[in-house]
């Protein structure tokens, strides 16, 4: 019986490592907005310059999927976000390419509302229930853009979460849910606008959340046949504080203690991703088998979903998830860097940045698995691995012809052979680190580094690979993606370098 139920079968999460200290923001803006000084506590996640909702979703998905090359079981992909990089180019298609999913995958972008993440999840549940998909990957991600000197700048964060919907090895059974659609315009972002326009918070709280959420809760509990008092975890993003969430739970007959941490203190609200971010965090840190979890997301109405954790929950213990991501933070106190990364400052990048970054789309498509999926080649005869793939093998002892099969590098272990920190070439985050990365199982790639702790890099350090923005083509509104190496600072001690001779 339990094996036939539909639910979540795996999770993953990703919060960028930079944590902007709110104190730095509040103090920098105190001259114009002293009212924000009171909000200057804790920290919010901050995407690196080369991250967007797509790259963060890829990271969350990789956490969920693990290092296995074979991802052919994923037959559907639902991506929820209101900050997708492309208005017309399937954003979930970029993610599918980066994850090297099969072309037969059904990939869908779900957008235009803060509940895009939960709506994506509901679509996935429906598809699996209907037998149209067996393993539907749900990703929610937001790279939130705000004007400087706004309360949103302090409240929001960047991040992504991933859950897999399926019927085998379910970790949280879907019991039922409800979706309420109300054209309650608490904020909006017009077609040509970069930023949200926000209405008064008190009205949103009292007339929006307080009245709409309980209706959705009631309907979801009825549809799932679960009583309010059975809800152990009340998962609802909101920026009105933990006390308000507790009150709202109580109003629906749910224990106030069930209200889960909104992660305001150490992450900030990650937009359409946040309900799933909070859900993954709850499943990682608080939920026990048998616990019933109510997941809510307010926005143009409200989505409400009820799950029951199973004893398979522990199968996900090795995942980084949200809890692991939150632990892997680096304090950022430079508010100007945040503004610069988010394009809020017009700064002199120098003439070197004037280079045209036009992307030949024909070239991109011809080399799609190489550029998007970091797929190289492996010689069937000699076993020699190389990047990129080529008709004539690089193997110096045997230049075999047409013997290469695709070989995926993204999840392989690798180390730095040579590197430099370059102050001359243009970088959004100088110095520009790059170098030769050598893979333990063969192959090497000269590549950009990112998320570097300056001063810690050396030959022999281990790296992990991440899918990031390579270049922005501001002239045409395009952005290029490729893979970069993140040096793992903790591996420096194990490195085989000249340091040992010092």
């Amino acid at each position, binding site marked *: 019986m339990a094996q036939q139920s539909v639910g979540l079968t795996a999770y993953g999460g990703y919060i960028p490592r930079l944590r902007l200290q709110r104190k730095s923001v509040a103090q920098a803006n105190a001259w114009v907005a002293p009212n924000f000084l009171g909000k200057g506590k804790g920290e919010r996640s901050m995407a690196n310059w080369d991250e967007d909702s797509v790259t963060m979703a890829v990271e969350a998905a990789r956490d969920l999927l693990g290092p296995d090359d074979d991802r052919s079981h994923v037959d559907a992909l639902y991506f929820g976000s209101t900050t997708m990089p492309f208005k017309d180019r399937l954003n979930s298609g970029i993610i599918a390419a980066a994850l090297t999913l099969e072309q037969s995958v059904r990939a869908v972008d779900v957008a235009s509302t803060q509940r895009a993440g939960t709506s994506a999840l509901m679509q996935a549940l429906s598809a699996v229930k209907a037998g149209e998909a067996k393993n539907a990957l749900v990703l929610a991600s937001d790279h939130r853009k705000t004007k400087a000197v706004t309360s949103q700048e302090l409240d929001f964060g960047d991040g992504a979460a991933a859950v897999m919907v399926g019927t085998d090895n379910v970790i949280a059974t879907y019991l039922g849910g409800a979706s309420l659609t109300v054209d309650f315009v608490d904020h909006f972002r017009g077609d040509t606008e970069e930023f949200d326009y926000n209405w008064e918070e008190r009205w949103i709280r009292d007339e929006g959340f307080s009245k709409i959420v309980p209706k959705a809760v009631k309907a979801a509990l009825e549809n799932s046949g679960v009583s309010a008092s059975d809800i152990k975890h009340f998962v609802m993003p909101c920026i009105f504080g933990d006390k308000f969430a507790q009150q709202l739970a109580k109003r629906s007959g749910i224990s106030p203690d069930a209200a889960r941490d909104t992660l305001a203190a150490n992450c900030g609200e990650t937009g359409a991703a946040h309900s799933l971010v909070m859900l993954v965090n709850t499943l990682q840190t608080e939920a026990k088998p048998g616990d019933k979890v109510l997941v809510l997301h307010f926005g143009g109405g409200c989505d409400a979903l009820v799950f029951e954790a199973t004893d398979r929950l522990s199968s996900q213990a090795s995942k980084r998830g949200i809890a692991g991501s939150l632990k892997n933070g680096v304090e950022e106190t430079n508010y100007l860097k945040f503004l610069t990364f988010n394009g809020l400052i017009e700064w002199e990048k120098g003439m070197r940045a004037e280079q045209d970054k036009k992307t030949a789309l024909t*070239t991109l498509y011809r*080399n799609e698995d190489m550029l998007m999926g970091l797929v190289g080649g492996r010689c069937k005869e000699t076993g020699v691995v190389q990047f990129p793939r080529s008709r004539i093998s690089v193997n110096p002892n045997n230049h075999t012809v047409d013997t290469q099969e695709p070989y995926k590098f993204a999840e392989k272990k690798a180390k730095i052979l040579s590197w430099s920190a*370059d*102050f001359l070439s243009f970088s959004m985050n100088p110095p520009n680190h790059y170098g030769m990365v*050598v893979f333990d199982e063969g192959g090497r790639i000269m590549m950009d580094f990112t998320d570097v702790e300056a001063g810690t890099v050396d030959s022999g350090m281990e790296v992990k690979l991440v899918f990031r923005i390579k*270049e922005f083509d501001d002239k045409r509104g395009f952005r290029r993606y490729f893979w970069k190496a993140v040096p793992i600072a903790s591996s420096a001690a194990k490195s085989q370098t000249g340091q040992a001779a010092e």
Partner: protein
Amino acid sequence: MAAGIKDKVAILGMGCSKFGERWDAGPEELMVEAYLEAMQDAGIEPTQLDAAWFSTHIDEIGTGKGGTPLSLALRLPNIAVTRVENFCASGSEALRGAVYAVASGAADIALAVGVEKLKDTGYGGLPVGNMGTLNPQWSPSGSAPGNFAQLASAYRAKHGVSKEDLKRAIAHVSVKSHANGAKNPKAHLRNEVTEDQVLNAPMIAEPLGLFDCCGVSDGAAAAIVTTPEIARAMGKKNIVTVKAMQLSVSNGLESQHNSWDGSYFHTARIAAKKAYKEAGIDNPREQVSMMEVHDCFSVTELVTMEDLFISPEGGAVKDVMDGFYDADGKVPCQIDGGLKCFGHPIGASGLRMAYEMYLQLQGRAGERQLPNPKIGLTHNLGGAPSQNVCSVTIIGAHGA
């Protein structure tokens, strides 16, 4: 193996413009400056030129593409002009084309001219450009110093050299070149520097500081070549001939195969071995009198001393610190200041190296003249350590 080029071609004349930030001159004026000196040195008329090879690297600035810029600037008598480009080794390629033309008998007298006008970009360092449509979609958008700096991390790792020791050795490389450049009236940078200045200069690409990087210069250089017989018939004395010309080009091994450790130039070792064989040199440390190597960055020069089999592997730091390559050392290197101080107008550099060897062999190097050199070696690189072209040319006194 082919018979090789040894002693088949003589240098009839050479010229070189003043290198530097030549705000006063475009590429045409620079080419004319080098050409007129070479023509006067050779003592021939333009109508005696049978063919020309023209090297320039960057199309977007400077002369643009094709052979016409040379023919127009020099008003050549409608002879063949072939434009060659092979990154920073382009100048050596122009010389190779002219030498091969004479050696084949297709030309009696051939001209090679290289030029680069770099200081029309509006900024310091080399211009940035795209390499096709695929490469920019995955290769790091780095810089030349960032690419060459990587030699340092790999060399340290391989040979167990500390950061400080390597930094000091490459500093000595630059101090030596500045001392040499100061004596060269055509050099771009003519100031002597101290080791402290080099060590404390602003970082460009770790561990390379400002003084670890060569000058970005405007300039041109030219060579006129013929057969030794024709040169002799023209009454030339102290004839200098080409002993070897080798070029080795990466095939992806360094950048794609894990057999390369990042600390040396795979191509340089191949080109050097072939060149020594072609020239009949079996003990380069003893037989090579002097060298002009591609010291685009101090660390490049250091590892090149091993790639040319002058210093033993892992022994370059010691040789450099011992002054082996200084002006008064056993094998003076960069006696004209090198790329570091004479400057590096890309398309001209290979010819500039040959120019200095030629002057030294003829005893015409003025204040920096070495005592009685017999064999000069030029080493001209293009690209980056992980993917490059490397030219090794040996010239010497005819019969040496």
